[in-house]
């Protein structure tokens, strides 16, 4: 029973890692060429990523320090067009898992924040400032800038669309 309880506490993502390591183990026994080729590829990839992870860690710490739910909520109370602007900024700057924000957004919905603004906020959470250095390494900075601008516009379109669709059949 104790063992079962301990096993339940292990996040599922660790099972995924263990499974992949086991697959590698099988290849090391039955197909050395694939095993060594994959390890070589892994080695090159991890060396490229580690320095960027350090930068991501620093940026995440800074973002956690300055951007709190209180900070975001304060600006979501703005009126008119400014509200959209602050919702976009709030979505981009917000951190932590998405489900952490659902209760807060539901509370703001009860206080008058419309569905379109909630959708816009959630869409902009897709833009992660601390991850931009990693994205630039894989793609180009021109691509990332264009993608971010298009995504911000898409978030407003989704917000307006959601407002219209949520009004239908009310």
């Amino acid at each position, binding site marked *: 029973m104790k063992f079962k309880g301990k096993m339940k506490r292990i*996040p599922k*993502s*660790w099972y*995924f*890692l263990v499974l*992949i*390591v086991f*697959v*590698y183990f099988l*290849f090391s026994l039955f197909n050395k060429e*694939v095993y060594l*080729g*994959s*390890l070589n*590829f*892994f080695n090159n*990839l*991890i060396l490229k*990523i580690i320095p960027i992870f350090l930068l*991501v*860690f620093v940026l*995440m*710490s*800074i973002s*956690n*320090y300055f951007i*709190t*739910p209180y900070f975001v909520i304060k600006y979501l109370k703005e009126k008119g067009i400014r509200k959209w602007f602050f919702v976009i900024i709030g979505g981009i700057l917000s951190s*932590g898992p998405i*489900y952490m924000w*659902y*209760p807060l*957004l*539901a509370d703001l*919905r009860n206080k008058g924040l419309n*569905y379109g603004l*909630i*959708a816009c906020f*959630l*869409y902009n*959470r*897709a833009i*992660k400032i601390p*991850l931009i250095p*990693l*994205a630039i*390494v*894989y*793609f180009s900075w*021109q*691509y990332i800038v264009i*993608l971010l601008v*298009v995504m911000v516009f*898409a978030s407003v*379109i*989704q917000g307006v*669309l*959601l407002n219209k*669709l*949520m009004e239908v059949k009310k």
Partner: protein
Amino acid sequence: MKQETLKQSVVKAAKGLWIAFPMILGTILLISLISVLVPKYFYFSVFSKNSFLDSFIGSLVGSISAGNPITSYIFGGEMLKQGVGLTAVTAFLVSWVTVGIIQLPAESAILGKKFTILRNISAFILSIIVAILTVLILEVLV
């Protein structure tokens, strides 16, 4: 909701990365294995070079995938190196973070079923449009 101390912020960032660590490491190991096992022509056969169809497939794969966006950048970047088109990769990246199949139950329980369904469907369609537009603008400007 007080301002976090610097130590708390650093610990929170470390915890966030630690939670994502097994998935990221596992994904990098999986990508390494796939890149050796799967020949490049396989990707060319799945993705047709038709912008709309490729972005639809990319968006579909991104929607059912879940996890830290770091993983999507690594996976998307490697897909690109294997010869998958930028439109498909963009749709994959955008839908990974905007469509939340895994979070559907939590989102619909807290924010409402109708809102959740409409938000996710529109996010899926938008990921295709965003991908096509981004690549078009990139081709015109760069």
